[in-house]
């Protein structure tokens, strides 16, 4: 069998690396958007929505 530059195995490795890269990129984007959503929904005391009234009662 002649030595080929591109073996079938290299294609699989490339596929695996691309998939991992995409997954990591998607994860970064997800955490970023989740942060935006969570931070922008906090009130001025930094409490998540729905928590404000109970916090005030406690104080």
């Amino acid at each position, binding site marked *: 069998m002649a030595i080929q530059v591109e*073996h*079938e*195995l290299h294609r*699989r*490795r490339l*596929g*695996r690396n*691309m*998939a*991992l890269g995409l997954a990591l990129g998607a994860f970064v984007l*997800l955490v970023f*958007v*989740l942060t935006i*959503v*969570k931070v922008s*929904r906090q009130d001025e005391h930094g409490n998540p929505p729905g928590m404000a009234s109970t916090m005030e009662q406690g104080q």
Partner: protein
Amino acid sequence: MSDFSAIDTGKEAGAGDFVQLLKPRVMSLVVFTAFVGLLVAPVPVHPFVAFTAILFIALGGGASGALNMWYDADIDRIMRRTQNRPVPAGRISEGEALGFGLALSLLSCLMLGLAANWFAGAFLAFTIFFYVVIYTMWLKRSTPQNIVIGGAAGAFPPMIGWAVATGGVSLESVLMFALIFMWTPPHFWALALFMKDDYSKAGVPMLTVTHGRPATRKHILVYTLALAPFALALGFTSIGGPVYLAISVALNLWFIKGAVGIFRRDETQAEADKYKAEKAFFAFSLAYLFLHFGALLIEKSLAAFGMGGW
């Protein structure tokens, strides 16, 4: 030398093999039921938080699938249906499957805890523990009721979805659990009747092997009858309503009719028409579950127009 043999085997895993490790078909049920559980809960969830939560519930379910394939590789190698899974086929090593499953379990529980709440995250962790340790490692190989126990793991997702929204457990979420829990045994035993897997060779005590096929037919009928009250009871809770109840009554009558049919048949009859009734019952069982949860969604969307519910 080792380099040459590695190339010769041509068995190196592609990305698809790792996806297969996550049991994508089981995942679709997890996604759908968790989604319904989250949506019908009385507390609204931000759409992106809901999306993230469902994603990591699905990933946690997939991680438990990978851990299951790691532990069950010895069984999977023996049974024809599972021989081509990535681990028994040699494309992914057992160690890789274990690492992949553990890492994803940790990630999904942490992310669910951060995105939603820690009760939901802990619940997901418990579900993975239950499926991998209680079911896969312990009871699957030691009791013919293994399907019943395994069903519990598959029944937790709507409860997790509900916990994402409410941060707790309630009657509604327990009944959604009960619906899937009681549905699983008739669903799988019908499959076991016509799939005729080589479970006995693999040392897995399947009801069809340990107690025989007539006993399995009886079990299907008993569980189907016991399932109906739970399915109907869900209709009287805050997430049910007349539409759900009407759909549920029709589905349960049809399901019981099918189970009675299976109970009355024997193997000769089943062989004669190539397990037609068993296959039809199995196919209908999928629609049964899908339509029940679909009906809950209908009730929820009707509520937006001031209808639905009680």
